[in-house]
């Protein structure tokens, strides 16, 4: 075990996979110079000994032009013909550039061609929200990809999940999108040094509780656990569940967690309408209706674009205080209105 950051864990998973399998290649803008900190040596620097370029060479580390649509399509084509590409798309807001390739080629090809090809490819991108970069760089677009059958989606919320899920993603024979949360980049914890694989579709329980269930996604997880800890001090116990992968989704895990408490708060930093929180809510309203004691509450970013000013942006995502307050209101506790 070593202490790793979330970002370091992503780098470590990539390095492991590149080492384990010659067919794994890394494709993306500015990957040679390690601009985004996951293709370097130990640190966030090209200077460090043994960065990806030095270790794996220019044949496998492909620094690209700014051509997202063709990068994504090329990765798909390469994956259909023997490579196992990892594509670094840097910001999640740039995925739209390649939407046609994602939806019409990456997601559909295997199906349309009757299973003649498989497509082992991973598309990584980081959600730079909460950092005052303005509307163009702050998106958390995973919900729209969840509506596209044929893609798998991971959304790790801790360093060890980041490493284990990403390794499973790279080893999957299907296309996987990895949505990484910049607010977690610096998060540190003990991570296993050797290879391990966290299966896609299996969530994790972060807190056990009996009063309310909080299903939290990506950067929402850390806020939900903080809220749960604050509530615990008040004698309220919350079950905190992180599905970790959005497709496939651990529906059983969610249902069990809700059945335990009969109350559900969903914490999701993406936009509200047709978001991941809506899906979780709908699943629960279908499968755990009889155990529900109260209306389901979604805590999400509002249906608003993201403003630049710190004075404006900070209110846009669900935070620990708001989560705790929502739970208190739901339980009808004194001071809930405060």
């Amino acid at each position, binding site marked *: 075990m070593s202490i790793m950051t979330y970002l370091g864990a992503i780098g470590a998973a990539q390095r492991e996979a590149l080492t384990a399998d010659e*067919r794994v*290649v890394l494709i993306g803008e500015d990957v040679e110079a390690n601009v985004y900190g996951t293709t370097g040596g130990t640190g966030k620097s090209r200077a460090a000994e043994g960065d990806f370029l030095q270790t794996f060479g220019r*044949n*496998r580390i*492909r620094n*690209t*032009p700014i*051509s997202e*649509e*063709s*990068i*994504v*399509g*090329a*990765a*798909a*084509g*390469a*994956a*259909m*013909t*023997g*490579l196992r590409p990892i594509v670094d798309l840097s910001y999640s807001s740039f995925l739209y550039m390649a939407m*046609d*390739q994602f939806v*019409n*080629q990456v997601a559909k*090809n*295997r*199906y*349309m*061609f*009757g*299973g*003649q*090809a*498989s497509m082992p490819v991973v598309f990584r991108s980081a959600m730079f929200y909460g950092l005052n970069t303005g509307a163009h760089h702050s998106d958390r677009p995973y919900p729209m990809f969840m509506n596209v*059958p*044929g893609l*798998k989606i991971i959304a790790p919320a801790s360093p060890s999940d980041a490493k284990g899920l990403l390794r499973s993603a790279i080893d*999957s*024979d*299907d296309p996987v999108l990895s949505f990484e949360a910049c607010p977690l980049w610096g998060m540190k914890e003990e991570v296993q040094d050797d290879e391990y694989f966290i*299966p*896609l*579709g*299996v969530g994790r329980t972060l807190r056990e509780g009996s009063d309310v269930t909080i299903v939290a996604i990506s950067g929402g997880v850390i806020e939900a656990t903080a809220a749960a800890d604050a509530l615990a001090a008040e004698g309220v116990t919350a079950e905190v569940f992180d599905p970790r*992968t959005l*497709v*496939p*989704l*651990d*529906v*059983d*895990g969610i*249902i069990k967690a809700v059945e335990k408490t009969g109350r559900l708060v969903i914490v999701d930093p993406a936009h509200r309408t047709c978001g991941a929180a809506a899906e979780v809510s709908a*699943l629960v309203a279908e*499968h755990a209706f009889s155990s529900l004691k109260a209306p389901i509450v979604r805590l999400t970013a509002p249906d608003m674009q993201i403003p630049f000013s710190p004075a404006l942006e900070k209110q846009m995502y669900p935070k620990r205080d708001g989560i705790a307050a929502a739970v208190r209101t739901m339980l009808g506790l004194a001071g809930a209105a405060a």
Partner: protein
Amino acid sequence: MSNELETKTLLEMQRRMLRIRYFDERASKMLKRGLIPGALHTSIGQEAQVVGACMALGDADYMTGNHRSHGHPIGKGSPLGPLMAELVGKATGICKGKGGSLHLADFSLGSLGESGIVGGNIPIALGAGLSSKVLGNDRVVLSFFGDGAANQGSLYESMNMAGVWKLPVVFLCENNHYALSTPAHTVTSGRIVDRAAGFGIPGVRVENGQNVLAVYEAVRDAVDRARRGEGPTLIEVMTYRFREHSEGLKLGVDYRDADEKEQWLQRDPIAIMREWLIAEGWATADELDALDNEVLDEVEAAYQFADSSPYPDASVAFEDLYTEVAGAGR
């Protein structure tokens, strides 16, 4: 140039052109009779352009194509039965009935799939070229697209990337002068072939795209170049579709000039090749008639195969999305 080509190769060219012609004519009739659902775009009139290009590829080479889709896999040598069965939506279709006319693919022959999305197949070809280069397996990739697709940005991104990385990709523009109802000259600024230069790659125009040998030679040169590691080429082949954009489409006024159409109909690639084969002594009229009949029989057999095959079980719709059944979902 013909001396370097074997009789066998020349006759194979004619055979494949005939296959496309008769396959598409039959498919068109089947569509009219309601046996084929959906849309269907024939390559009738463009056989030389398709076959000349495909014959310049080896069996291991890759290919991607577009909505005008049947010709490409046929040109690459794909057996007709599973293709025809696919158009009908049968279980024995090359894609198990899930693809249909716009989405043929025969991976066993390097046909990586036709795309209903104009321009969508080009980056896929780029990726196959990257694969070939990284793995060092010497395969060349050919991407077919139309004059209409040449206005999609993906082409230029892909030409650039293939140019920078010297990938073994041949970008082949089938310029049949129209994108659906839209004349190419009304939506194309400059000439497509001239766009290669700005991306640092050779651009070649085959003016006589109705001549299978002219196409073959141009593509062969580009394939050789690609295989030598010298990178991509853009080829623009001038041709014409003899039928409507898609079968059954009825537009009130023909957007194509009657004279223009008539002139092009005189330039039938199959007739041109037939005359040349006879004139140059590669085959007799009788031999070519026999070839004709062989191919007609092949198409008939393909029809019978399609017709007698069962429809897929409804459950097939729920297979093949992923390689494994998705996780813990309900």
